[in-house]
């Protein structure tokens, strides 16, 4: 297991090199001069060039790239062009904010999605099943941006229950969490439903029924554990997507998270901040995936052989204990 974790962590190196290389490549083709952004429209061309020299922007891209990578290896993600503060120092509190929202959103999505998926599976081919699928698919197909604004209109503008933006109090976290959460309900519902239907058809479930166990006990005690394996995998994926994809929503809700930080940095051509934010998200995604893989082994120790022997490959489902 230890070797597997080390192997997966070593995979971080090519991933981070790839992410940083792509962003550096984009930087070279994106119009808009960071030096001009810093100095303003009134600056002369000489001043702009001097600033470019100071920032090292006149060096060949490959030199800039390896200089940056060398810094990252020493924990130096550069300094924000905008504030002059170390990017890492700026990122840490924002990551904490984004993490809170992401975890809350995933919890909302997973709890509601699993609940609806179980109901849907138990009431298969009835109007309840159809209603659950239609409602959850609706939330998945509407863009999060629109869901966010609609929730603002309902809960902030009309009901005045929650603030429309900001996170000065705990109430400020609810709408961003809800927006990201409801958009993922369909995913969890679908996975839970199909997984639950499959598990409910297994021999050991029939045996349990034959023994006279109540349906609720069968579902909760026997079916649920195996149903949760693909759901857990999906949670891992959703965690990463929610963290990386929260940029637009953090802007809509004016949440000082890492997503808004990157969006603001892109607008200002603040490349150290863009790079730092993107690399940090990449690191977190890789670590989350690793944790998810390890969690499979914890849920079902027999998967240890499969996962570790087969790398990141995971089985569709596990046999009942």
């Amino acid at each position: 297991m230890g070797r597997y974790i080390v192997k997966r962590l070593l995979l971080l190196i090519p991933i981070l090199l790839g992410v940083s290389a792509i962003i550096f490549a984009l930087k070279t083709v994106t119009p808009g001069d960071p030096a001009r952004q810093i100095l303003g429209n009134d600056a002369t061309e000489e001043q702009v060039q001097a600033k470019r020299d100071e920032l090292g922007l006149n060096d060949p891209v490959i030199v800039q790239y390896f200089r940056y990578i060398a810094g990252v290896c020493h924990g130096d993600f550069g300094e924000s062009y905008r504030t002059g503060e170390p990017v890492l120092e700026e990122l840490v509190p924002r990551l904490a904010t984004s993490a809170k929202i992401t975890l809350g959103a995933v919890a909302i999505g997973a709890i509601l999605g699993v609940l609806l998926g179980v109901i849907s599976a138990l009431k298969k081919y009835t109007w309840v099943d159809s209603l659950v699928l239609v409602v959850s698919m609706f939330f998945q197909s509407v863009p999060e941006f629109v869901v966010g604004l609609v929730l603002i209109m309902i809960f902030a503008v009309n009901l005045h229950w929650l603030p429309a933006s900001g996170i000065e109090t705990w109430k400020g976290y609810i709408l961003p969490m809800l927006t990201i959460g409801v958009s993922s309900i369909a995913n969890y519902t679908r996975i839970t439903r199909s997984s639950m239907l499959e598990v409910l058809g297994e021999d050991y479930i029939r045996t349990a029924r034959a023994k006279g166990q109540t349906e609720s006990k069968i579902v909760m005690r026997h079916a649920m554990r195996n149903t949760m394996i693909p759901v857990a995998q999906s949670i891992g994926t959703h965690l990463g997507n929610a963290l990386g994809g929260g940029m637009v929503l953090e802007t809509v809700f004016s949440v000082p998270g890492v997503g808004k930080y990157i969006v603001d940095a892109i607008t200002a051509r603040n490349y150290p901040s863009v790079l730092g934010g993107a690399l940090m998200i990449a690191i977190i995604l890789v670590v989350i995936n690793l944790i998810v893989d390890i969690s499979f082994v914890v849920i079902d120790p027999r998967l240890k052989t499969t996962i570790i022997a087969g790398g990141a490959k995971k089985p569709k489902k596990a046999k009942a204990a």
Partner: protein
Amino acid sequence: MRFRKIAAFAMAATMMLSTAVSTQAAAVGANEDPANTEKTDETITIALASEPTTLAPSLSGTAANEAQIVSSTLMDTLVRQDKVTNEITPGLATAWEWVDDTHCKFTLRDDAKCYNGDTLTAEDVAWCINDVWVALNATNDTGMFVAGAVADDEHTVTIEFNLASPALLGMLSWTNFHVFSQADVEAAGGMEQATKTPFIGTGRYRFVEWKTTEYIKVERNEDYWDPDYAGYFKEIVFKFIGEPASREANVESGDVDVAADMPVIQASAFAESDAVKTVLYNYGQNGHLWYNMTEGHPTADINVRKAIDLALDFDNIAIVGTAGTAQAATGYIDFGSYYHNDTYTPEERAVDIDKAKELLAEAGYEDGLTLNTTYLAETETVHAVIKECLRQIGIDLVLNPTDVPTFVQTANSGDYDIMIIGEWMTDRIPSAFPFIRWDNIHGFHMGGPQTTTDELDGLVHQFIEEKDDETALGILQQIEQIMKDDCMVSNLYPEVKGAILNPDLKGFTTLERGYVCPYNFYK
């Protein structure tokens, strides 16, 4: 057919948005409201479109919308200027007198207190002008026209300008010409730190806290020197909400009292709402379509420029660009300015497709041509109408919507055929006509329209320096006539800004360039 559809849409928009016209009228009235007269313990929250990069623009050698808005609460200027009449009134200076064409002596009031409680002296003012305005702002307005200052005695300071112009006094009322003391700056941690924690200034409010990415908080200065100003709100909180729809929703929900810098199309959609108060206001800036006259661009040919001018449906462009609140421009300068000239008659503004096609054929483009333009997303609809107008004469306009940094770079590089950029001029300003003067000292260093002549450049300087307003108006007429004859630019419409307010809020006023003034609101 497609053009007729756009025209029909524009007409429908005019009808729907007719309420917005009355809103604008109300806004002009609101601008005339006196400042508030009582103090409360309430807080006003103002949503800005983005977070400022500095809270002391002159110390950072820059000027940006949000920084100007916030810093206007903290610091004062030597003089003030009425935004409607352009009259210069006392600020930190109670009187002023021109010693000669380039030297002006200011008598300071003796009751303006710096942040540390000390009285602001002539030494403080001279230091700020020499070590901040001039030393740190050599390439922008703040330092470009000022040579230096000398403290004559404790309450008198003489400023030396490097050009002679009656417009200089009005310029000193702009927020980037704030005055503060060296002692305050040093106590705040030095020049760089003071841009982040500006415990400086003699202003109506005092800096409290800047929580990056969340808010900036300022608190009423209870010892403010101006007896005519009360400061209704005890605290002003600035929040940063980038998404306009979200800014508006925050006002509706009551979380925010003012949503500043709203795109006019979005703001006008709330003109009839009872839940919010919509303010659409003209701030003295006309939008102009500039032609890139650099060799190699089709628009270097005057026939192409004239053909485009004849193809443009100025009325519909103005309707779309101002949400139906203003008519098409008839001159380079805004209608509300003393310096406005009706350079074009209504007949000259009429669309003439046949004549435009003839001119294009004369230029050798009888089979049509392709042009490109770069613009900010907020003018998307205007550019859609322009594209359709040009399609009528066989010009395919390639639209490149972009963000501010790319827009600036494109303007600087001259990598465009046509481009809309506005110019603000309610009064004469020293940096007027940046694109048709050789020194091109202010604003975009446009790669294209910078093409000018000695004659034009000379007239611009005469216009700026002329002492007599009426003579200056005559000079301006000559400039505009040359620009018209050479079709250097097509004047489009007076640009309109929008703001959404809590309906109970009164006292909407603006700073220069239409920035929302944050300190005059009351209920």
